[in-house]
């Protein structure tokens, strides 16, 4: 059994979902996503037991492209994130009715497939293919099942697609250039290439463009809020929960080791950009009227911090970034789900039209509040572990980075609590608000359980990711 099993399960799942018809689609999709989760846990065990779970097959001879999937700790952690979030996301959609649901769920599984592939691929081109593939399902999910004015949505979605594609095409160019030097797309070979500082600069920039748009780092974020708002919540969850992490993961896996000199040289600029994102995102989030948009900007702020952590080129920064990625993945999915729960009842995403929900739905309030608190990185949640580590690493680079980045804990608390206050608190709303159903509750509970458990005991994850991050660091510091 090797890592390709997960991919196969998800791909078969996508087809099975499509052919199972609209009625069964959601259940079949859930089943397969759970199977993928199970499979990845088994693989994790095998990996920990020292088994070789990588795959490498030659695929295209000239240019030399291999079907190479390699699962190290970092990759597995991200795969687990994907595998765990997918069933949650699918399950969370059970309360909604979607037209053509077979297509819908098939696309979700397909996207999950592509994202898993991205995290596993150890051949540059294979990675790129998965990277692009992930874009197509989300495009259709947002386009067809999205909400809001159709024309606006089209505009937002096409902008998103073109924008992200634009970035990644430059990455492709960089990959091709690297291939000329290395004669192979395999990551080990690419790591070995010796590039001049100037070459590295351009390579770094090309990668940065791709990732800055995907993550997004300001000022490349303009697609984000609109798409989050327009996409169906499931799409938003996929985007924010997993897809953003593709960008962040790629920074660690590809960008930094491939252009270490440039990474060191321009470290400050990129950290500064990340931190600017933190502050900017937080400030913009303050005055958002749309709940999903607000969450989008909060996401912008958080990923800014993660990116800043990654660019510190320290083990702590990496480790914190990865942990924060996982934590943020869960939290943001939960938060968007909360927005969806409210939408199911109130048919609105305008914060002004909400309020006074707490009295009617204590369970929902508690869970929502826990998520809000996790999002502001209250200690004892997993987010704190990540955020603390990242901030610590920033402080090692320059204390000002830590101070500026640390404003997130103030501003974050400000906008999240403000949002919580206006959405949940206040005089009891005249519109009835039914408390969470069992299905909804389960989704929330799983997310919260994960966040709290790792908040107190992050060791399994740390142990999993540390060796591979050390390897990456070694590559970065090789000369």
């Amino acid at each position, binding site marked *: 059994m090797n890592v390709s099993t997960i991919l196969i399960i998800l791909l078969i799942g996508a087809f099975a979902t499509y052919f199972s018809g609209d009625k069964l689609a959601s259940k079949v999709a859930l089943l397969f996503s759970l199977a993928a989760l199970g499979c990845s846990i088994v693989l994790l065990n095998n990996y920990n037991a020292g088994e070789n779970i990588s795959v490498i097959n030659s695929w*295209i001879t000239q240019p030399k492209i291999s079907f190479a999937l390699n699962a190290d700790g970092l990759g597995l952690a991200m795969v687990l994130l994907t595998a765990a979030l997918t069933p949650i996301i699918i399950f969370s959609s059970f309360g909604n009715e979607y037209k053509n649901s077979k297509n819908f769920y098939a696309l979700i599984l397909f996207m999950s497939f592509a994202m898993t592939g991205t995290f596993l691929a150890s051949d540059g081109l294979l990675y790129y293919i998965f990277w*692009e593939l992930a874009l197509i399902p989300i495009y259709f999910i947002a386009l067809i099942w999205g909400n809001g004015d159709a024309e606006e949505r089209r505009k937002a979605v096409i902008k998103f697609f073109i924008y992200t594609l634009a970035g990644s095409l430059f990455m492709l*160019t960089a990959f091709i250039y690297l291939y000329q030097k290395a004669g192979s797309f395999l990551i080990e070979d690419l790591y070995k290439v010796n590039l001049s500082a100037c070459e590295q600069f351009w390579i770094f920039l090309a990668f940065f463009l791709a990732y800055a748009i995907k993550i997004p780092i300001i000022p490349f974020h303009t697609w984000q809020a609109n798409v989050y708002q327009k996409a169906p919540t499931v799409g938003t969850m996929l985007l924010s929960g997993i897809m953003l992490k593709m960008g962040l993961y790629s920074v660690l896996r590809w960008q930094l080791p491939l252009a270490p000199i440039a990474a060191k040289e321009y470290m400050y600029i990129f950290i500064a950009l990340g931190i600017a994102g933190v502050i900017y995102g937080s400030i913009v989030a303050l005055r958002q009227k749309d709940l999903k948009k607000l969450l989008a900007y909060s996401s912008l702020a958080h990923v800014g911090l993660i990116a800043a952590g990654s660019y510190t080129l320290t083990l702590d920064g990496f480790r914190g970034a990865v942990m924060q990625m996982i934590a943020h993945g869960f939290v943001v999915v939960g938060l968007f789900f909360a927005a969806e729960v409210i939408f199911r009842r109130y048919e609105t995403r305008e914060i002004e039209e909400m309020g006074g929900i707490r009295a009617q739905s204590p369970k929902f309030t508690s869970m929502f509040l826990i998520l809000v608190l996790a999002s502001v990185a209250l200690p004892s949640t997993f987010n704190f572990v990540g955020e603390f580590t990242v901030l610590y690493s920033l402080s090692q680079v320059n204390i000002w980075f830590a101070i500026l980045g640390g404003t997130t804990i103030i501003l974050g608390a400000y906008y999240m609590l403000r949002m919580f206050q206006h959405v949940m608190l206040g005089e009891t709303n005249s519109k009835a608000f039914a408390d969470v159903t069992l299905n909804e509750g389960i989704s929330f509970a799983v997310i919260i359980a994960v966040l709290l458990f790792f908040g107190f005991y992050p060791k399994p994850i740390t142990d999993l990711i540390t060796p591979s991050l050390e390897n990456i660091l070694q590559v970065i510091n090789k000369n």
Partner: protein
Amino acid sequence: MNTLIAITGLGIFCLLFEILNLRKAIIPITILGLLGVLALNYCEFGTEQSYYNNMIAVSKFSTAFSSLFIVLTIFLVALSHNFYQNHPTKISDYVAIKVFLLAGAVAMVSFGNLAMFFLGIEILSIALYVLAASDRLNIKSNEAGMKYFLMGSFASGIILFGICLIYGAMGTFDITEIHESALSAELPIWFPIGLILMIIGMLFKVAAVPFHFWAPDVYEGSPALTTALMSTLAKVVAIATLFKLISGMNVIASLENQDLLHTFEVIVVIISIASMSVGNIMALRQVNVKRMLAFSGISHAGFMLMTLLTVSASAGVLLYYTAAYALAGIAAFSVILYVCRDQDNEDITNFHGLGKTNPLLAAVLTASLLSMAGIPIFSGFFAKLFLFNQTIQAGYIGLVIVAVINSIISVGYYFKLIIAMYSKEPNQERTGRPFLIYATAVVSIVLNIALGLFPSLVLDLLK
């Protein structure tokens, strides 16, 4: 050689069937016949042989491209059934012309003598003039035919002039001899001039900027099936021929000898960039799908021209690119044929809601557009990848960056169509599920994806 003879025979059979009143059998028999020809052609693969005083020189290059042409023709013939349903008396003519056109095309990639090349290109062109104007009661079709004819024969004149100058320099029409003497120091300047004039003529055929103006008008005015033919088969033939001309006559080395290579490459780069940019940008505002695809074709021509910078190594890449492009084009056009069969135009509005009424066709069209846009797993992506790889290897990184930017622009209009299919409400009833159209669409897109999954199959053919 056998391929060429067989194709010609098949064309004549088509005409005979009409006389024998076997009209219904024409399309099936032709398809079967073409499959046979394909098999025959496949048998020839790998042999390097020249026939009849080197009039026809069979090589890997020629057989591979011939196979591609035959496959495309099969699809086009298959689509003819529904397209010419209202013209039963003419169907044999249409099919025969297509088959003869294929003969011309095959001659163009397997010529060993410029006479064969010239006749081949003229057969192709004249067949296209006729097909473009074939909807004779339609003013647009007339206009398209006329425009194509006028400009095409103008270009033919220039090609002929080029051939003449080459002959003047070499004293022979034989490619092998030209290849050998192209490096001699004693060459008069007529040779490079002739070459350039021929290349310009071929650039017209592939619709590269600034010789592209005919393409959108003609594509728009011609009957849809003819447009399909032009944008897939004809374009592929033209670019393959251009490639063969340049590689066959040892142009690069010869130009290098005369210190003209650099300027030539500059020209190629400029034309390539101009074609990509003009094609893509102009396509943005088009409402007619055929016209849009015409501009898209112009931009793809720009991409394909990049292979001319690395002639010695990029035959496989060109084959792959053309195959990917043409298969996607066939798939797209079969959907367009279906959607616009009862319409008097091919505006995007006709595609509204296709995703709801005919999900399969919508998926096929989406896939083909994605392929053209260069999104992974579709072969269009790999085509661009290999092309970029080749070009970067040759050191033209700036060109590749421009190409990349153009790929981004292209998404804008490809996705306009996708959006129309999926996010707008259907505005018309679409009845009927013509088998041949569906089959063509699905088979071509499956081939396209298969190429994407196993690129080596095609890519390594010409090694």
